[in-house]
């Protein structure tokens, strides 16, 4: 066992050495967006300097970018419809100015405290709303925002009440005053915006960013990859809260006056609209959103206070015709009209054969076998599973067949923790898995695939498979967000491993294609690759052959044998008897939630009751 580990360690080192050169090249390229960002703010700064009106607008735009970007993290990336974001922004603003003005703190610690206040406010909102989704989350967080407004309005002795907080001191840094509304403050805000852009960009490509998007697209897939959805959610609230707090601090020192209106529901609505207009979830979305905001506000004023009309109309048009916003629209146009040489990812979905070379599978530490014992599952009086017991040995492929509605998928749901049985146990070695959450079960080495594939449609296949490597990351969350070396090493290893798995399943050619763009047969194999990335001890395959051609099923059979040869126990559910018979030496049959037969494949398939359950009682009659 120890030699095995050493072999892997050396191969990891090789991977890192190889990736170092590609990374050096990538780093040179990755400076381009940063340069563009700097160029943009410098050009804007030079254009507006000398005109106080436009300086103010440019400074507000820089602050709005930070605020919108922070909302894009929680709403665009993590898909959480939080309406408390403006209140969190307000928390940052009020905290910093109260500390500075009333308690005479320095601006830097006060600003940090404002960011911390944003983070804590985000955490506070996330705790009681952890189970809410969609509209319910929106309404719950709306309540928080509304309550915050009342608290600020009523605590006049601390906050200045409804008439606002006066006497905010300008930012003093390095002995220089950066007074809000001057070009000096614009440069400060612009620098902050560029720094935030870099953070957003790194976050976007980090393991944390991947987890956010996975959570947005499918909570089930997130859990199946061994990722805790609740902590991921809290993290999204914290990161976006921290940055919203920062935006609040910037805003307070720009306007030098804040009041409950600073973070009212109108502000919330505006940031929502701006995020959506630009393109929710896109790195460049907030940039274009803020540009649209400036255009709409200025245009609206020319037309006589018509901003609400323009905002309202814009949002309806976006939702109806361009749900991906300006950036998404641009991307689509680019794909259609750009010269083909410049387009990326135009590769055809090749369908290579699975390599017969033995799959380099690293099984999780040996747990013995997986035993289902006396499991009983009822749904409102209907018994889905009745006193079911069976076991899967390490390294064997156990087939599970049964007619529709026999309870096959329920068995997988019970084992993986998606459904809690009314009684009975599922033992992995000595540990009872019943009562564990799906992500905990996945982390313990019992991994499943789904009848309908659960991949993140906006990720390419290799990124999807990398999700399964998430639990092997050595870097902490903070390192991942700012992409420190350890996190980049994690990613390089995860990518290498993911490419390996895709190659072994014969779909390496499609690795860079989005999951929404590849054919079904390739998706099914990608899902097996993702499950394998978790280095399971047991793999539960729920109808991996459904909807595939017989050629594709043969490919999957090869892959399953490779998995079993590496010592991983497999449960194979399928309807196609010859597929199951080919892949498994042992078979169990379920009918009406009960175990009908168990034993060597040929024996079971010639069992009278099994034939009756499958084909009806023709043979008897």
């Amino acid at each position, binding site marked *: 066992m120890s030699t095995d580990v050493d072999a892997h360690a050396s191969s990891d080192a090789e991977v890192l050495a190889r990736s170092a050169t590609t990374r050096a090249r990538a780093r040179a390229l990755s400076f381009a967006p940063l340069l563009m960002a700097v160029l943009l703010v410098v050009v804007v700064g030079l254009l507006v300097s000398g005109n106080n009106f436009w300086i103010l607008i440019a400074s507000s735009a820089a602050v709005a970018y930070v605020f919108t970007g922070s909302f894009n993290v929680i709403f665009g990336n993590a898909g959480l419809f939080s309406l408390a974001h403006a209140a969190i922004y307000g928390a940052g603003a009020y905290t910093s100015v109260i500390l500075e003005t009333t308690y005479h703190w320095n601006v830097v610690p006060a600003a940090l405290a404002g960011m911390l206040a944003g983070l804590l406010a985000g955490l506070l909102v996330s705790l009681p709303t952890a189970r809410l989704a969609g509209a319910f989350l929106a309404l719950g967080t709306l*309540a928080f925002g509304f309550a915050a407004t*009342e608290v600020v309005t009523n605590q006049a002795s601390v906050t200045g009440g409804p008439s606002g907080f006066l006497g905010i001191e300008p930012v003093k840094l390095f002995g220089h005053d950066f007074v809000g509304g001057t070009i000096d403050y614009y440069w400060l805000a612009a620098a902050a915006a560029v720094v935030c852009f870099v953070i957003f960009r790194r976050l976007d490509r980090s393991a944390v960013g991947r987890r956010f998007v996975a959570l947005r697209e499918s909570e089930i897939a997130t859990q199946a990859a061994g990722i805790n959805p609740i902590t991921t959610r809290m993290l999204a609230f914290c990161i976006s809260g921290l940055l919203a707090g920062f935006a609040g601090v910037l805003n307070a020192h720009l306007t030098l006056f804040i009041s409950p209106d600073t973070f009212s529901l109108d502000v919330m609505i505006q940031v929502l609209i701006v995020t959506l207009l630009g393109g929710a979830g896109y790195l460049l979305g907030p940039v274009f959103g803020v540009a649209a905001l400036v255009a709409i506000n200025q245009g609206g004023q020319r037309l006589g206070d018509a901003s609400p*009309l323009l905002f*309202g109309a814009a949002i*309806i048009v976006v939702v*109806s015709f361009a749900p991906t916003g300006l950036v998404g629209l641009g991307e689509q146009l680019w794909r259609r009209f750009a010269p083909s040489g410049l387009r990326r990812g135009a590769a055809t979905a090749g369908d290579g054969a699975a390599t017969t070379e033995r799959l380099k599978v690293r099984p999780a530490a040996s747990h013995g076998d997986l035993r289902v014992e006396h499991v009983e599952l009822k749904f409102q009086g209907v018994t889905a599973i009745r006193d079911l017991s069976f076991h899967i040995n390490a390294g064997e492929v156990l087939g599970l067949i049964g007619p529709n509605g026999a309870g096959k998928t329920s068995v997988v749901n019970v084992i993986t923790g998606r459904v809690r049985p009314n009684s009975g146990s599922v033992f992995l070695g000595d540990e009872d898995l019943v009562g564990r959450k799906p992500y905990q079960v996945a982390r313990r080495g019992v991994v499943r695939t789904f009848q309908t594939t659960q991949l993140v449609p906006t990720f390419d296949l290799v990124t999807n498979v990398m999700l399964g490597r998430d639990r092997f990351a050595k870097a902490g969350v903070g390192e991942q967000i700012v992409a420190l070396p350890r996190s980049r090493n994690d990613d390089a290893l995860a990518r290498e491993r993911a490419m390996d798995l895709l190659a072994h399943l014969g779909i390496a050619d499609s690795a860079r294609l989005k999951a929404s763009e590849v054919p079904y047969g390739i998706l099914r194999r990608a899902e097996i690759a993702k499950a394998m990335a978790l280095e399971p001890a047991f793999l539960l395959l729920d109808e991996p052959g459904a909807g595939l051609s017989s050629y594709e099923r043969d490919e999957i059979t090869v892959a399953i044998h490779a998995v079993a040869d590496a010592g991983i126990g497999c449960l194979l559910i399928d309807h196609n008897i010859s597929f199951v018979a080919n892949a498994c030496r042992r078979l169990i049959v379920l009918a009406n939630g009960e175990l009908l037969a168990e034993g060597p494949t040929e024996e079971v398939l010639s069992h009278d009751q099994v034939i009756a359950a499958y084909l009806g009682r023709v043979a008897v009659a």
Partner: protein
Amino acid sequence: MDLYIQMAVGASTNAAIYALIALSLVLVYRGSGVVNFGVGYIAAFGGIFFSNFGAGGWPALVTSLAVGGLLGMAAYLLSVRIGERSGASTTFLAMATLGFGLVLEYFAGKFWAKEGFSPKPLWRGSEHVGGVTISHERILTVIAAAVCFLIVLAILEKSMIGWAMEAVAYRRSTAASYGVNTVGVTLVVWLLAGVIATLAGSLLAPVTSISREVALPLAIQGFAAAVVGGLGSVSGAVLGAIVVSVVQALVVQYISTSYASAFAFILLFVVLALKPQGIMGGRRQVRHT
């Protein structure tokens, strides 16, 4: 004693208004799965229309309700329908309704002054109970809300169109496969929702006043009532409205006038955290609304 009567009068008027808004929200939520963030703007627009139409009184109310119905249908056709067909998420559709609301807000300010309106009451005079004066308008408000609730209940339980609404609320594709014109039914749902929201705005106007600024607070109180009631049940909406307004009255009386709405929200927060399905249970009840 007078104190309690006073509290009861205030709470019942609020409950009536909140219940109507919540009713409008719940109908749309069941019919389209969308939280209508534009509901407050429809109510405010309708109330402002009522305050400024002709000589006021009952003809103005009838006309404003008709306008409200049209607004409801327009909200569906303009902001929801297209996105719905192309598979937009309900989150996005909710934002489109907000967009529709903003457009209404703009036109309300364009057509009429950007100020509060207090039209003359529909029913003049008042009653005296003990030492408390109760205006007839407040009594009318409660009666109108109750009648409206009963009509909605009767439509849902006893009429063909109500059953069709139930079917659409349960599952659109199933309803369609039984030959229900789902778009037509959904339009009726939004029409009803528009009428009810406008009724809330029109009843509120003479009691206090109506302006564009009340749109959001009104919607928020309606959300609170609907969520406390379970966001999906018509009776729950009314019950939720009663709970929210009673809690507010008690908070105002015994704790603080300034935190009245905050407490409604703490209530909402607690309900969501502990029992997201609300006090009336299921998010989607098929029968026995």
